[in-house]
């Protein structure tokens, strides 16, 4: 614990600022939930969250300059990227959906991910190996992390739906009208976004693998798990065409999808086949 605190203090101002603001935003969103209809407080929470999002972007920019390469190599760097993608996505979502539960969960996730990043902090900036020096590197990683972020938002909505199946969400449309849907409805929209991004990430990865290794698909454990997560959502999209697929079943399948994605991202070193993979993060 002492060691973690020591490492925390060694983080730069962007990191510490983002961590603090995500914490403040969590408290503000929680207060909004506690005091119903606290509209101005909600706006304050949104602003604080937005500032935290900017700081996490600032972290990536400063790290990019310092490293002289895209800072998406180590687990620590990727956790920062996830935080940035997740908060950018949430800021855009909040333009249409003001859901304090979602804000609260997302900012708490920000605190959690940054906290976890401390335990995985790099002592120094790692050199980029030859295979990662490619124009496909940034799109592949960024598209995937936006995909992961969308799956996270869908997961929060799924969990909320399972807890409060009758709760409705208000959507602001561009012509000033409002529409209402359940959490499951919102969840479905984010899954559609996630599916497009996961598909794009998978395809970009395959095309890149072809130019780097000579094979678009090598059944690498990470590739396999990316395929598995993609299949979960492909199954979801097919099941939705059947009448028997209830909102509740959809929410449960989304939770499973999120678990699969989390394992794909963070669990690869646990697999017996991890040593055969080109994708396992160092320092895991």
């Amino acid at each position, binding site marked *: 614990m*002492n*060691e973690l605190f*020591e*490492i925390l203090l*060694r983080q730069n101002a962007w990191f510490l600022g983002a961590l603090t603001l995500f914490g403040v935003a969590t408290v503000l969103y929680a207060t909004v939930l506690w005091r*119903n*209809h606290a*509209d101005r407080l*909600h706006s304050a929470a949104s602003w604080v969250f937005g500032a935290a999002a900017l700081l996490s972007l600032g972290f990536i920019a400063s790290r990019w300059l310092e490293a002289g390469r895209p800072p998406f190599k180590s687990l620590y760097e990727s956790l920062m990227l996830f935080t940035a993608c997740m908060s950018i996505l949430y800021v855009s979502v909040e333009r249409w959906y003001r*859901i*304090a539960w979602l804000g*609260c969960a997302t900012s708490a996730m920000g605190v959690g991910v940054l906290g976890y990043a401390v335990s995985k902090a790099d*002592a*120094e900036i*790692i*050199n980029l*190996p*030859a295979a990662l*020096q490619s124009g496909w590197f940034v799109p592949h990683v960024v598209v995937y992390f936006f995909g992961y972020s969308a799956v996270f938002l869908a997961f929060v909505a799924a969990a909320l739906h399972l807890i409060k199946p009758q*709760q*409705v969400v*208000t959507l602001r449309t561009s012509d000033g009208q*409002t*529409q*209402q*849907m359940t959490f*499951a*409805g919102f969840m*479905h*929209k984010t899954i559609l*976004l996630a*599916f*497009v991004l996961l598909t794009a990430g998978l395809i970009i990865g*395959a*095309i890149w693998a072809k*130019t*780097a290794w*000579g*094979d*678009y*698909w090598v*059944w690498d454990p990470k590739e396999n*798990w990316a395929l598995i997560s993609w*299949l*979960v959502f*492909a*199954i979801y999209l*097919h*099941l*939705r*065409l*059947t*009448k*028997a697929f209830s*909102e509740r079943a959809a929410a449960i*399948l989304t939770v499973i999808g999120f678990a699969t994605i989390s394992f794909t991202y963070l669990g690869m070193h646990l*697999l*017996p*086949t991890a040593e*055969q993979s080109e994708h396992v993060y160092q320092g895991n």
Partner: protein
Amino acid sequence: MKTKRNDDHSGPSAAATAGPGSTAASKVTAESPTGDRHLPWHRLSYTTQMIGLLLILGVASAVQTGLDLAVRSDHALAFRATIGSGVVIAVGLALQWRGRTVYHYLSTVQASVVLLGTVLLGTVMGTMVLQGLSNKEFSEHYGAAAPVLNALFLDDVFHSLAFMTLLFLCAAASAVSVIRRWHTLMRWKNVGLLATHVSILVVLGGGLIGYLSAKKGMVHLQVGESKEEFLAKTPRSGSEKAEPMGFALRLDRFELDKYQQEFNVYTYSKDENGKYKVLASDHAALGARVGAPAPGTDTELRITRILNNATPTAQAGGTHVLTFSGGSKTVVLGQNYTMPNGLQVAVDGYFPDFTFDMASHKATSRSNVPRNPTLAVRTALPGADLKDAHPQYLFAREDMRDMMAGNGHPDETGLTYSLQASADGKLASAWTEGMVGQSNPAIEVEVRRAGHAAQKLVLVAADEEPIDLGSGRMLVYGEKPNMVKNYQSTISVMRNGRALLTRVIKVNDPLVFEGISVYQANYDPKNPNYSGLEIVRDPGLPLVNAGFWILMLGTLHAVALRNRRMPWKRPQLPSSVATAGGVGGVA
């Protein structure tokens, strides 16, 4: 999914089935006395359907085993795949001809769910069991379980006939779904859905072509050398076979590009399991405080010297000084001494770079460099006989003394040993800057601990010898890892002794010539003239690439155009539903 009854077509596909398929089906129904000529599968739960599918795949596995016994050649896999696909197509067509049942089933939504679910399961298994090992490695790793895993083809899931049959069925399901819903899918708003399903066919088709006819292997070249053949690798058996490229490749030049060399001071911690973690990396600068000793331990480290080519000045010799309470004495190897307090000392040996060899139980010196100067002595109290005394080791390094004391071997002689190499008496001064142009980076660190005299230690990067900072933390001076930046070959494509083309290839930048791709695959750190090139000839590649793009654009189109409508939009929300709890709040 625990769904017991699965509705067949609903939603968009329900409209789609109003196409030719369903008219045919209703015709059959009208003619049939039983009223239903579909397989009753779609009435079963997903789990039951999946078990049924797994049984079919079991048959595929049995076929594979039979073929394995019957055919033993490099083409066995391709042969199997062809036969397997043929059998499945034949069975499918036969069933379709008799009652169109499999055909109908494959076009249903639940068939796709069952197929996707089974691919998912198979893929999970392929990450749980080590893939593509040789039979020997596999049985060594799995022991008694190996034959069972082998029999289920889990040792190479993705190349098993069962998995290929599964992929074939996925392709067939995509095809049938598209054919049965053709008129609906041809509408602009559904083109994306059409594209995604067609893309699966295209990608899997390209993959099959590649699987049956792609060649992949290595060309190992030295600078100036040219070769016309590459060593094509046979999957699974791993055997190599020379294969002509249709042209010759000549290696003109090879370059290994490295990142600028960097040496840093690393602090790492080691936990109970021996797993270490780098806590800090400091750039070595003169006068800088370095290291991250555990909080609470008042150790302070400062760099007092930086050596580019550390060269020891004191070799095996040097002056050995024993300090005791009340004075010090310079001693010589092989002599016996009696100290003023009566203690008898025999100086038996000197180990400049002491280590204890566990195998022979003997003290030895790793080198002549005084990294860990140690004096072997025997001591006896006044009146006792020196001959009966056991050998003892006196360490010049304070951290070694602390370590021995920590391991339950405190020094009880009352003597402190130091190696004096020069007038200032500091061990570190045994190092000096050597010849310019050679490299042996080292730093001298001054270690200050409360209650101890300041101590100067030299850390040589090549030694990787750590300083113990206490509380499980170590300090080491070393080179930053992952130094290779990129590597590239200048290669010429030759025909009839003439160079048709000369190009530089590097990782992520291959050469494509006449359908053959040439990749920069590896290098030899010990041989700057070697370059390992990978050769791939895959006729299925254009199809696979096309399939990827169709899938990407199709998915985008399908999501953007088909899902504008609210999902699960409730025409009427119950008025009792509150929009409280942090939801809504839109003015």
